[in-house]
């Protein structure tokens, strides 16, 4: 059983900096879990603590049921792919792959078999005699993966392994990773700041910010039922529009226009709608939020319309709203428009805590 468990793991640096605060996370055997968040959110810290490269201030870490919190990295039966690959530059690819097995006194014939098998799987069998310096970035990345896989670890740790590859290669390797995990379902914990990688690769995603877990769930759950404004604004490109609004007399009002019914006392809220769930209408359309055009970005398959909404008459700065409009939409800057939202796609968040309320229905259906 290669289940990975973080139990109340905290990592403090000195008295002030809390890199990780009370992380509780269980990764099932064979699951591919993604840790995603902006830099400084604690994801790399969490990975390093699992690897044994750092020790938690409090909490326990378990791999395959065994508590490993005080064990060194070599005693945890884990393997790691580093962001910069960390290949041994003076050793050949073969020796790089064999290194870990040699430390464990694996017999020579067994090492040879496993190295060649893994090299074949990753399509680097032609490169076994070369040194890392003679390889391309993509080849080095595969050798790094090979070095980790050849040991058949209980858990597979990956620290932003695609970030040093160019965009085209990244897409290709992403696919390779998915296929690889299907063939060898090793429990994997993958750290990235790229939400596209997160959503495409992970069985489950753990969104983190400032040392705390924001939400754990599948891609569908994270995207369609975000737990708070952070998750809502972080996942998705372009991100969900979040504008301040108020509840008055049982209705949510954005810029004075009622959007949805909500049984709740009067209070400020944050309304969230994704760009693909908004529509651009004429300026006087019934039940539409008045806005004016800032600029348009044509992208071929669609046009991103950037509009300004005066949500609060008291504050001078308008809120920016991005709408994904059909191709060919051409609007002049400053032009007045009306915005409507698709039914059931309006999210409500508490203005103070940012946590999600129930999704409401629009007042007038379109």
């Amino acid at each position: 059983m290669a289940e990975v468990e973080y139990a109340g793991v905290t990592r403090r640096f000195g008295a002030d900096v809390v890199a990780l605060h009370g992380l509780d996370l269980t990764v099932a055997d064979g699951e591919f879990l993604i840790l995603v968040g902006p830099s400084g959110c604690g994801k790399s810290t969490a990975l390093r603590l699992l690897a044994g490269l750092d020790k938690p201030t409090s909490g326990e870490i378990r791999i395959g049921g065994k508590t490993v919190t005080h064990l060194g990295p070599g005693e945890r039966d884990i393997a790691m792919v580093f962001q910069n690959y960390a290949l041994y530059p003076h050793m050949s690819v073969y020796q790089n792959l064999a290194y870990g097995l040699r430390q464990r006194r694996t017999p020579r014939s067994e090492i040879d078999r496993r190295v060649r098998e893994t090299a074949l799987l990753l399509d680097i069998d032609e490169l076994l005699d070369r040194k890392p310096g003679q390889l391309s970035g993509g080849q080095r990345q595969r050798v790094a993966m090979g070095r980790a896989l050849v040991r058949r670890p209980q858990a597979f740790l990956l620290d932003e392994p695609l970030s040093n590859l160019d965009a085209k290669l990244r897409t290709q390797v992403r696919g390779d990773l998915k296929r690889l995990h299907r063939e060898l379902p090793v429990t994997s914990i993958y750290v990235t700041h790229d939400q596209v990688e997160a959503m495409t690769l992970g069985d489950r995603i753990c969104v983190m910010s400032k040392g705390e877990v924001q939400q754990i769930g599948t891609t569908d759950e994270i995207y369609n039922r975000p737990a708070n404004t952070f998750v809502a604004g972080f996942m998705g490109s372009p991100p969900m529009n979040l504008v301040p609004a108020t509840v008055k007399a049982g209705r949510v009002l954005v810029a004075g226009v009622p959007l949805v019914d909500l049984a709740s006392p009067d209070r400020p809220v944050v309304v969230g709608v994704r760009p693909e769930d908004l529509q651009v209408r004429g300026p006087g359309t019934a039940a539409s939020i008045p806005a004016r055009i800032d600029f348009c970005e044509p992208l071929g398959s669609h046009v991103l319309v950037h509009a300004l909404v005066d949500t609060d008459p008291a504050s001078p700065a308008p809120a920016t709203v991005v709408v994904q409009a059909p191709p060919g939409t051409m609007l002049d800057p400053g032009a007045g428009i009306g915005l409507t939202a698709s039914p059931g796609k309006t999210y409500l968040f508490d203005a103070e805590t940012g946590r999600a309320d129930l999704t409401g229905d629009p007042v007038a259906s379109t």
Partner: protein
Amino acid sequence: MAEATVAQEGRRPGALRRLGRSESLTGWSLVGPGALLIGVFGLLPVLMSLKLSFQRSDLLTPDTPWVGTKNYRQLADDPRFADAIQHTIVYTALFVPGTMVVGLLVAAAMNRSVRFISVYRTAAYVTMAVSTISEGIIFLWLTDQDYGLVNAALNKVGISSQPFLSSPSQALYVIVAMTIWGWTGFAVIVYLAALQGVPVELHEAAAIDGASPFTRFRTITLPLLSPASLFLVVWLTINALQLFDEVWLTTKGGPLHATTVIVYYLWDQAFVQFNAGYAAAMAYALFVVIVLVTAVQFRLARKHVHYS
């Protein structure tokens, strides 16, 4: 004004030729002083020394008769020179590895970021600033037979006082120790910089692969330090073969010629015995040895030195 025109018209052949000529004048006038000085004090002496090695000269009288290869033949038969070579080899064989090992150990200890580390490092480097004469005087005092601190410490653990620099069998080894101390600072600087060039992730990856700290040092760190090690081997060997100052100060080549190294013998022949021709031949022999040894070291390096 002409410059501005040239910059604009630089592409045309005529202007290029003009550019080439004016650049040559500029070039030579800039290089002139340096080339002249090095030519007079660096190149010319090399030729003069070669000529001198085929003559007999006492540096004072202008009479320098040609003696052909007599000096070199004499050198081959000179037992004092053979001894000097032997002493120099023994010295070099101990000094070079000794300094490298000490330098590496100290650098490894200093390769961490605890508080005051810059103070510790400065103290480790500081022997670089100590002149050979100061170093010699300090060690004369430390190893003094009657009042030296080293003998006091030896007595404390039951070993009798040693003559050290007054003993023909011990003096050379004391000089080895003395010069290792003097060169430690330099070796620490080189190794520390090399150690800091080894990415931390390599150690982390090796740790995850299950290698113990000692294995990591042997299989990862040392090979990656090999360029620095090569530099030190070459540089320290060249300096070891030229040992002079400390010998002159502490033992004057003695006792009983036990510490006469090649350069000491050379200096003695040139400036005390006034056999300048003979000394010039000796100097050329040393030159050839240095070039050969360095070439051999580089050749061996190709197999063992890894550049990442």
